């Protein structure tokens, strides 16, 4: 590789977060003027790597070179000064400001008197938007725009910096067909101006249409970098998932009982979104003593499915949900809870833990009324109840009255599982239960799920880690963009097949022929 052509070099980048190694000795070279696609599963470290390049995070170890000079970006401003702009997956716009105000936010143009030079900012914004085929007024309120247009505002912002390196983090995840096409034309135009683009995506058709080279990350490591012409989509998905499956635990077959939960033709609308629905035509069932895995990439509708069953979804839905053969329509989690359904939510910190309550109170919350005698909560009964439950789930804590935030992520999660097990559910919904917890705690959770299942509980589990799902589940349903695209029995399922089904929606939608 010619040294002069390398515009960015990331050498041996390592980044740790509490309990997780997000990036482990990652090396990446980006050539001037190319479009480099970075692929990987959820949590592979793609976004973290780009946040390091754009100054959001500092790496723990490793070096960053831009145009042959070692740099150290402490803030995004430093990165912008070096000509690097990032368009984040979650857009960073101030919704109540106008488009032009957003484009120049923090770098406002001023007149010689020091006042805002609105006229020039509006004119420059208009030019930038025109060059992006974006027909919105620079004066319109940003929050009122469609997601696709908001994304173009972000791109205009990057261009206003005269960025020569633009990072796009899954830019099409919220776009419609025509908006995606427009984005591709914009990318073509940027490239003709010599802009280097780093493009994060897990949609194979896009990657193979746009990229010059493809880099694949897996579990925080750089697996492979390959020219597009030398790779096929099947190979790339293989690299994305293909880790050694040595940690799969021994599976002794379970015998499922009668059907306890059935979902028929579930439709959940998504007003204001290009797709129009969060879930469409979803049907599945789960039996007592069975673990049903739900696979899908981010945005596929896994969480929405579980929330809808649990009565916690924001939208009205149509279709039918049968619990023990009876049609149910929960409007509040309490009803689901009373009917014997429990749900451990995805985002433990935001939706699970009560930071102001102790370990004991966090566990007893749903079933506190059982400890009531004569209108008052009896502490001894409550403590006995909690102690029994956390012994079953193996929570390690110094005491029931210690602070829940003092526990490790794994123990916090076990507390939340304990909370729900106390309600003695028949159906347990686990939404990505092992996210952000350490390996040991994961293994304990797997064992717990197996035990519960053998006692006759029906378990629905989602996970962003395929090996986990494969080792846990008796059956796996694959969701892609709100639809069921495949269902596998345990012996038919493989990471390759699931990943292909999970990315299927994207292929169907664009109708693009895959190069083989």
């Amino acid at each position: 590789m010619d040294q002069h052509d390398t515009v960015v070099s990331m050498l041996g980048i390592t980044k740790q977060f509490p309990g997780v190694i997000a990036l482990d000795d990652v090396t990446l070279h980006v050539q001037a003027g190319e479009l480099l696609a970075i692929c990987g599963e959820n949590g592979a470290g793609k976004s973290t790597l780009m946040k390091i390049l754009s100054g959001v995070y500092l790496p723990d170890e490793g070096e960053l070179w831009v145009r042959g000079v070692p740099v150290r970006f402490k803030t995004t401003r430093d990165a912008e000064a070096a000509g690097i702009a990032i368009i984040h997956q979650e857009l960073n716009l101030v919704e109540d400001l106008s488009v032009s105000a957003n484009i120049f936010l923090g770098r406002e143009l001023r007149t010689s008197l020091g006042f805002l030079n609105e006229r020039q900012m509006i004119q420059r914004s208009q030019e930038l938007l025109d060059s992006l085929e974006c027909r919105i007024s620079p004066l319109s309120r940003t929050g009122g725009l469609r997601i696709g247009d908001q994304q173009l505002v972000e791109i205009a912002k990057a261009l206003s910096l005269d960025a020569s390196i633009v990072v796009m983090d899954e830019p099409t995840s919220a776009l419609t067909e025509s908006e995606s096409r427009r984005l591709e034309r914009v990318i073509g135009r940027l490239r003709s101006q010599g802009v280097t683009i780093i493009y994060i995506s897990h949609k194979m058709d896009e990657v193979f249409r746009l990229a010059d080279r493809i880099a694949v990350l897996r579990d925080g490591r750089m697996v492979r970098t390959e020219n597009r012409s030398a790779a096929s989509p099947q190979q790339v998905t293989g690299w994305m998932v293909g880790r050694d499956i040595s940690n799969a635990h021994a599976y002794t077959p379970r015998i499922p009982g009668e059907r306890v939960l059935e979902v028929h033709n579930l439709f959940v609308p998504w007003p204001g979104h290009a797709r129009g629905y969060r879930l469409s035509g979803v049907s599945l069932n789960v039996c007592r003593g069975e673990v049903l895995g739900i696979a899908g990439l981010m945005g596929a509708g896994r969480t929405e499915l579980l929330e809808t069953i649990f009565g916690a979804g924001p939208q009205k839905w149509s279709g039918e949900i049968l619990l023990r053969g009876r049609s149910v329509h929960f409007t509040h989690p309490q009803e689901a809870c009373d009917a014997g359904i429990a749900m451990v939510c995805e985002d433990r910190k935001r939706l699970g833990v009560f930071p102001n309550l102790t370990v004991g109170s966090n566990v007893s919350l749903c079933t506190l009324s059982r400890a009531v005698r004569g209108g008052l909560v009896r502490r001894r009964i409550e403590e006995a109840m909690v102690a029994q439950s956390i012994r079953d789930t193996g929570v390690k804590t110094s005491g029931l009255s210690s602070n829940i935030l003092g526990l490790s992520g794994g123990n916090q999660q076990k507390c939340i599982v304990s909370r729900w097990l106390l309600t003695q559910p028949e159906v347990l919904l686990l939404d990505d239960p092992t996210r952000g917890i350490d390996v040991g705690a994961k293994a304990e959770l797997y064992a717990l799920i197996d035990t519960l299942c053998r006692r006759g509980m029906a378990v629905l589990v989602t996970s962003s880690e395929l090996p986990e799902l494969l080792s846990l589940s008796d059956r796996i349903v694959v969701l892609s963009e709100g639809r069921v695209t495949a269902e596998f029995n345990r012996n038919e399922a493989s990471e390759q097949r699931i990943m292909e089904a999970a990315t299927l929606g994207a292929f169907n939608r664009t109708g693009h022929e895959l190069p083989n």
Partner: protein
Amino acid sequence: MSPSDASFPGRSLLRSSEWALVLAIILAVAITALIDANHSYYFKPLESARDIARNTALLGIFALGATVVIIAGGIDLSAGSMIALSGTVCAATMLALAPAEMIGFKPVGPLAVVTAIGASLTAGFLVGTLHTWLVTSIRLPPFIATLATLVGLRSFARALCESTTASFTPTKSALINVYDPFFKTVRDNVWISVAVFGVLALFTWIILTRTVLGRHLYALGGNEQAARLSGIRTDNIKWFAYCYGAMTAALAGLFYVANESVAAPVNQGRGHELNAIAAAVVGGCSLSGGIGSVPGTILGAIFLRVVIDAVSKIIKTGADVYEGLIVGIVVVIAVTLGQLGHFAAGGRRLLPGSLGLCAIPTLSIFCGMIISMTAGARVGLASGLAALVLLGILRVWESRRF
């Protein structure tokens, strides 16, 4: 204070921050007893204690309601106006039931009194329900909803007062005098209000620490979404909280009427909602919800009243002149002391950058002016200069350290 102190069945009655408040109260009383030139704490201990007890009880009753609302993650700015409305409803009910007796300064009879009290508490329930409806169904932020009733209810109370007096008395009036012996007894016997406060405090404490409802209040304030996803009917919990806030204010309103022998919607309880919130905050409530306790709020209310009393004794002016200033300073100091650990541990600076530079003269001028108004110009000037020097030293020390 650490969050773990907040709720799981309290092992001990008081937390460490609350013991600090007890200490601060004792200190404030001791200093007043020493400095006060009249030595009224020494010569008239019972009278002084009664004064403080009356004021504390009056503030404490609706500070307990504010505590419950704040723990549930809300805020009730309307308590002062609720006090005015409650008093007016009480007096207007009696006027409507027994106009001749009310005008003739005669007893109105127990039935009218009981009905009037019932009407006031019902008004509290209705206002609490209105707040909950605005917050949960209309989705107004609690600050906005209760800001609207803060201004709205006082005006409503005044209109109610004028139209009732216009109907039942010869002239319309913005106040209704209350002479019934029941209210006189309450006024003359301070310990009634203290006893009511005590019972209410115990009741609130039991609810917060020993019932499912209490636990759900803490859960709601700590993490509303998680509470809903745990099957808690969060709207119902909020309903309780806002009704409790409004009904304790209504109860306090009855004592205001008794103490002043008049229902005066224009001024009664004006601004007092902030004192209640201040008492709760000084007592350890977190305005982001989920943290707070009854003993804390009681101590917060006592501390506020003791300091107000101390200043009025020492500088011998009406307590009301400096009341707001004292409440403001006490709140800032109490919350700052609670955060000092963060400043030391997190490397945060008290006087950073150019803001810190400007804060130095600002604080010194305030300090100098307040002291010169209370203790004379010379002492004031000296204290202002001393503050300037001390803050300057702090600034230099901080910039060396970081």
